[in-house]
């Protein structure tokens, strides 16, 4: 019995530290409607800064806690800088751009941390005065865990007082409820937004700094926590502090006890909790439904997508050049172009639901990776011929997309983005942990093409044929009644139901189709690389797909293809630099601020302004 109580306390301590981070994200979202991807980076930064401060300040409790608080405040300032320099410029843009821009900050901060603290993990000192364990009903519980629990409750109470007893708190609650009304009442929103970012970032920094005596500080903390935090706020209800607290406790306790039964089950448990909550309460335990008409503010961009005769000829010309390429260029460029084709299909599959259906998936790599692993396992364990393995890979991905998509399409906008990311992270963890089958971190090696396709040129043509077929099939579907129904639902969910079309079912089918084609791309990718590792389905890979679509332009047809090309070339050039992530992060931020229509979209707008091409309809 006492053992279970100790385990309960351990769970509560984890819940408490998770709550610190999640509440910050929730507060920021509630007021600004920005899902701050960099929130996990702030958490990591808090831990690193606290490490530096605590190890360089004199020993003793005063300086230890002083260091922790100072670290949290410093992170708060970083949050404010990000808000002022980046987000202020794009509050009016679609929510997707804010998400992606903050991911640029993630990459930037990753390299800043690498540059400042070096690549090694840092082990901080224990908290002075709380470095032992105490006896509770015969079980030993670390004293520091109790401190963390107390801090969690203090922060919960503090936030409650702040929001219910102060004028500023009332303003925050009012903004969460109705931003426009608050603006109409003459409240300075810029100041409120900056203040909220400060508070939220301080909480993330505090969460990170508090971890110092519990675990080593690593460069993986940022993305590891953000997925869990997304689950917490989706389950708890976006913008609800108490909801975040409840969800933190539920998830952490399930982890604490689940791990006793079967370590791998914790992920499944997290999935089950999320599934149950979202089926019963799609907006989270204490969340409230989004305004039903909110989606209709979507700015309808021109979709004169159907390529003109000239455009079709140009495309045929490009394909002709690609066919001749192996006779002209070196093998290195063929390898590069093979990757471009595969990623172009991957991007086009995301574009299918994103540009046309308005569904933002932040976890599209899950289906790419499922295809890659599906094809590789079939080859390595089932001795399946290469072509059959590539043909079956999409079905593995489709299965995953059917299950996860069923939940995802119940939500919309950023909620869906966060949920899709959480699912992708669960798939990643399962693959990462099942080292017996998937090879764990090292992945599956020896995924080589069949004898007849082992020549680079042959594999190039094979990839070109398959990806071209896939892209053309996706395009055709965009203009089919199904693709149109999807777009209709994006334009007006109200109207599409009123003409008898079940939008949710259509969204689900689209999600499965997109997953299937991503799986096809993934299947090819394994054979192109000869190896399949967990990076084929991690968060950065999902963001790659988003980047390609955004880089090319969401509201264009060839955007994803141009984006994939630009992306591969850019990556190839940047990898030469030690701090390529930072450069890439800055490019992402720059694109979000300066070229929200992407390469193709911006070019088209430019030409239209100059009167060089007609504006379509």
């Amino acid at each position, binding site marked *: 019995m006492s053992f279970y109580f100790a385990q309960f306390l351990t769970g509560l301590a984890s819940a408490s530290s998770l709550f610190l981070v999640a509440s910050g994200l929730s507060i920021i979202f509630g007021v600004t409607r920005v899902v701050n991807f960099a929130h996990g980076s702030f958490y990591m930064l808090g831990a690193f800064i606290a490490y530096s401060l605590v190890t360089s300040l004199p020993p003793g409790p005063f300086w230890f806690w002083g260091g922790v608080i100072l670290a949290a405040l410093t992170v708060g300032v970083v949050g404010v800088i990000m808000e002022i320099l980046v987000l202020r410029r794009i509050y009016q843009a679609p929510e997707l751009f804010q998400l992606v821009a903050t991911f640029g900050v993630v990459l930037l901060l990753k390299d800043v941390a690498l540059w400042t603290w070096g690549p090694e993990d840092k082990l901080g000192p224990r908290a002075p005065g709380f470095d032992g364990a105490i006896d509770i009903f015969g079980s030993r519980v670390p004293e520091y865990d109790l401190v963390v629990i107390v801090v969690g409750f203090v922060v919960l109470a503090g936030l409650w007082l702040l929001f219910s007893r102060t004028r500023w708190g009332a303003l925050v609650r009012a903004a969460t409820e109705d931003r426009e009304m608050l603006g109409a009442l003459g409240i300075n929103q810029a100041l409120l937004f900056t203040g909220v970012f400060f508070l939220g970032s301080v909480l993330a920094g505090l969460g990170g700094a508090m971890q110092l005596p519990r675990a080593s500080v690593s460069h993986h903390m940022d993305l590891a926590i953000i997925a869990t935090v997304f689950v917490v706020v989706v389950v708890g209800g976006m913008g609800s502090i108490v909801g975040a607290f409840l969800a933190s406790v539920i998830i952490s306790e399930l982890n604490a006890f689940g791990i006793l039964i079967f370590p791998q089950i914790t992920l499944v448990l997290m999935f089950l909790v999320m599934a149950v909550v979202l089926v019963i309460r799609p907006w989270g335990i204490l969340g409230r439904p989004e305004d039903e008409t909110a989606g*209709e503010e979507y700015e*309808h*961009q*021109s*979709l004169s997508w*159907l390529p003109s005769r000239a455009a079709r000829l140009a495309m045929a010309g490009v394909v002709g050049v690609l066919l001749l390429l192996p006779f002209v260029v070196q093998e290195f460029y063929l390898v590069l172009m093979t990757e471009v084709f595969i990623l172009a299909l991957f991007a086009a599959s995301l574009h299918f639901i994103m540009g046309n259906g308005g569904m933002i998936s932040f976890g599209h790599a899950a289906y790419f990776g499922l295809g890659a692993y599906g094809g590789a396992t079939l080859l390595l364990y089932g001795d399946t011929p290469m072509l059959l393995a590539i043909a079956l890979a999409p079905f593995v991905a489709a299965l995953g997309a059917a299950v996860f998509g069923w939940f995802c399409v119940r939500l919309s906008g950023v909620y869906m983005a966060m949920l899709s990311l959480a699912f992708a992270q669960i798939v990643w963890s399962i693959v990462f942990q099942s080292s017996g089958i998937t090879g764990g971190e090292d992945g599956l090696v020896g995924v080589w093409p069949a004898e007849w396709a082992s020549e680079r040129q042959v594999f190039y043509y094979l990839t070109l044929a398959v990806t071209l077929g896939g892209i053309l099939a996706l395009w*055709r*579907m965009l*203009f*089919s*009644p*199904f*693709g*149109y*129904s999807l*777009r*209709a639902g*994006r*334009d*007006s969910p*109200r*109207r*599409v*139901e*009123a*003409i*008898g*079309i*079940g939008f949710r079912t*259509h969204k689900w*089918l689209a999600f499965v189709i997109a997953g299937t084609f991503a799986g096809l791309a993934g299947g090819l990718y394994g054979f192109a690389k000869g190896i399949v590792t967990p990076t084929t389905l991690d968060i950065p890979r999902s963001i790659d797909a988003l980047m390609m679509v955004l880089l090319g332009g969401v509201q264009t047809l060839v955007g994803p293809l141009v984006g994939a090309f630009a992306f591969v070339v850019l990556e190839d050039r940047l990898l030469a630099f030690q701090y390529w992530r930072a450069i890439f992060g800055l490019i992402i931020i720059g694109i979000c601020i300066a070229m929200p229509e992407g390469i193709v979209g911006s070019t088209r707008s430019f030409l239209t302004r100059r009167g060089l091409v007609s504006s379509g*309809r």
Partner: protein
Amino acid sequence: MSELTVSRLSKSFGGVRALNDVSFRLEPGELLAMIGPNGAGKSTCFNCINGQLRPDHGSVQFVGRDLVGLAPRAIWRLGVGRTFQITATFGSMTVAENVQMALISHHRRSRALWPLATRLYRDEALGLLESVSMRDQAERRCNVLAYGDLKRVELAVALAHDPRLLLMDEPTAGMAPKERIELMGLTAQIVGDKNIAVLFTEHDMDVVFANASRIIVLNRGEIVAEGTPAAVRANPLVQEVYLGAGSTYKPEARPAHA
């Protein structure tokens, strides 16, 4: 048999009785206007019929079928068209494509993956647009149209599946007075030709009295009057509902007595 038979419909929100025992019938080819002051229960009644809300009591019979509990989608399939108070069209599509979407859904082909959507049922769509005088704007995108034109597109969309009943929630809201009369005149003509029953709510009394074949007056969730436009206009109770009982402004209204 009546097209629509609403009997003893009741709906409460918390402690507020938004609808109390409302019953009425609608015959084919009839334009029935539902009027009443704000908060009278018009929208609640509407939403109980179109499936958006589930009534607490009562039934809604549409050509012999009970609509209560059916999804808006299913009700549409049975032959009930609707237009919205605030227009809802597909802004990224052309006017013709908006109507084509309704036709595609009507023919149950919204999941077809191969044909080109813009080529399906195009002639039918253009025909419908002709009937609402929007044929010449068929190739324009909906998000550049004037509001009055959007209303016409909505009407064409609502007629796409040959409905037997049309539900129009404040069809002329947000329009200029002249456009209002025109739109309702057009509606009256079309439904007359096709013998469609129409239930509409409306705030503009000119529109109501010019086009309705019958009027029901709601107040505080109950029907307080029902009849021809002339009868309703003469009804003292209706005048009281619309102009107030007279007690509030009595001293000012009747200074002669002082």
